[in-house]
C-alpha cells in the first residue's frame, strides 16, 4: 500500500504518539515440535535458549561457521510447540538450516507462514489499547513472552516484541481470522500503517533489516547484537569466531545510526568517506514523515564509529552524514 506525505505524517503520528497496526504477514513463521527443539537451537545460535518455559520467549542469532549472521530469530514457547519468527522471506532458508543439522534430534519444523497471520500493534498506547480490546492484562508481559487470548471472537497469541524503545505487540492467529481482526481494529479506530511509514519507524528505532543491515555479510558484533550473545553458554555454530573477535577486539566495523544533510538515493551504493578515505556505507535511508529529518543506518569502520563524527557521502549524493547513535538492538551485552 502506498500513501502520500500527509497520510504518512498522520500515520507516523499515530504510531509514535498513540497506536497503529501493521500487517506483518511477511515475517516468517515456523512451528518447531520435539523434545530436542531448544537443545538444537541452543547449539546453533548465539543466545542461551535452553530453558524457555511455556509463555516465555527469547531472541537469538543463528550464525554460520564463519560467525556471520544467518538471521535474528525470536523463539516463543506457545505450549504445544515453539514458534520461531524469522526475517521476511527467510523462513524456508531457516527451515532448511535447521533440517540440515537435525541428525539424531527429536525435532520437526513446519513452515506455517502461509496458514497464519501476524499483525503488529505499535506505539506508546499499544499496550493500553490492546488491554482494553482483549481484556487481557499485558503490563506484566515481558519482552518476547507470549499470552493467549481472543479478539473479535478469534483465537490469538500476543507476543511483546518492542521496536527499540517503542512498544510493539505481535498478534498471531490463523489466516482465516485476518479479515475479522483487521476489521475489528479498523472499527476500533486503530489506523493501519503502510510499509513506507512502518519502515521509517524501523529505521528511526535502529531496527536492522535483513538484506540491509543483517545477513551473511555481517557478524552479530558488527550489527550491534551483543545483547543476544551469551559468551558463557558453550559451543554453537560460529562461536569460536565470535569469541575470538570479541576477545581480541577484532571487530572491523559497526552499525551506526546517522542523520543526513540531504536525501540519499540508495539505488546506487552510497559510500561514506573521510578525508577522501572510504570508511563505510549507508544501508538504509528514510525521511521522518513529521519533521522531514533524513536519517538512516549504515556500517562504519570501528575507528570512525563515534557519535558526532561526520562523513562525506560519495557519488551523486554529495551530502554530509553524521553519526547520532550506536544502536544495540538487544542492549549492551549480558
Amino acid at each position, binding site marked *: 500500500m502506498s500513501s502520500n506525505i500527509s497520510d504518512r505524517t498522520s500515520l507516523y503520528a499515530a504510531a509514535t504518539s498513540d497506536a497503529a497496526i501493521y500487517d506483518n504477514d511477511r515475517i516468517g513463521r515456523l512451528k518447531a515440535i520435539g523434545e530436542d527443539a531448544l537443545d538444537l537451537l541452543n547449539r546453533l545460535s548465539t543466545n542461551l535458549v535452553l530453558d524457555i518455559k511455556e509463555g516465555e520467549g527469547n531472541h537469538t542469532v543463528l550464525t554460520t*561457521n564463519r560467525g556471520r549472521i544467518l538471521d535474528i530469530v525470536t523463539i516463543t514457547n506457545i505450549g504445544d510447540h515453539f514458534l520461531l519468527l524469522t526475517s521476511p522471506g527467510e523462513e524456508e532458508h531457516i527451515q532448511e538450516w535447521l533440517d540440515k543439522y537435525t541428525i539424531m534430534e527429536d525435532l520437526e519444523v513446519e513452515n506455517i507462514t502461509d496458514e497464519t497471520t501476524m499483525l503488529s500493534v505499535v506505539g506508546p498506547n499499544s499496550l493500553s489499547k490492546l488491554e482494553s480490546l482483549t481484556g487481557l492484562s499485558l503490563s506484566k508481559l515481558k519482552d518476547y513472552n507470549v499470552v493467549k487470548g481472543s479478539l473479535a471472537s478469534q483465537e490469538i497469541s500476543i507476543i511483546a516484541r518492542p521496536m527499540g524503545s517503542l512498544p510493539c505487540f505481535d498478534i498471531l492467529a490463523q489466516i482465516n481470522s485476518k479479515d475479522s481482526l483487521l476489521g475489528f481494529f479498523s472499527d476500533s479506530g486503530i489506523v493501519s500503517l503502510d510499509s513506507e511509514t512502518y519502515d521509517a519507524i524501523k529505521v528511526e528505532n535502529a531496527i536492522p533489516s535483513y538484506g540491509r543491515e543483517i545477513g551473511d555479510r555481517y557478524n552479530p558484533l558488527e550489527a550491534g547484537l551483543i545483547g543476544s550473545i551469551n559468551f558463557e553458554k558453550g559451543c554453537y555454530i560460529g562461536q*569460536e569466531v565470535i569469541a575470538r573477535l570479541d576477545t581480541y577486539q577484532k571487530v572491523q566495523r559497526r552499525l551506526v545510526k546517522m542523520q543526513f544533510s540531504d536525501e540519499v538515493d540508495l539505488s546506487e551504493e552510497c559510500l561514506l568517506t573521510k578525508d577522501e578515505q572510504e570508511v563505510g556505507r549507508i544501508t538504509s535511508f528514510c525521511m521522518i514523515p513529521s519533521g522531514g529529518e533524513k536519517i538512516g543506518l549504515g556500517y562504519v569502520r570501528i575507528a570512525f564509529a563515534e557519535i558526532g563524527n561526520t562523513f562525506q557521502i560519495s557519488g551523486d549524493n554529495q551530502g554530509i552524514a553524521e553519526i547520532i547513535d550506536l544502536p544495540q538492538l538487544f542492549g549492551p551485552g549480558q
Partner: protein
Amino acid sequence: MSITMDGVELGVQISEKAAEKIKYFAEKEGIEANVGLRVAVKGGGCSGMTYDLHITDEELESDKIVEQFGVKVMVDKKSYIYLVGTELDFSDGLNGKGFVFTNPNATKSCGCGTSFAV
C-alpha cells in the same frame, strides 16, 4: 547402506589406547561385559557438527558395529555417513585432549577438536 573400500566395509576405527580408556570408563559405569562405545553426530558445535560419545552395552538393530580391542563401536545409520572412515584415538598427559577424532569427511574442525564441518 555400507560404504566400502577395496571390498572392506568402512566404519569407525579405534586405537588400542582409546579402547583401554573406554573399558576404564565402562568399568566405572558398572559395564564389564559387552563394552560398547556409541559414537554419534549432533548438529552444533563451533563448526556445525559435533561428536557425541556414550558408553553403553545396548546395541540397536540398525547400528553399524565394529569390534576392536574388546570394545564394540556402535554407530547409528544417520551418523554413519558423517563418520565413515573416522579414527578415534586417546591423547593423555597434562596437555592431552582426551578422545581425538581423525575424520576424513571433515572439511574443517574447530580448535577444541570436538566440532567439524562437512
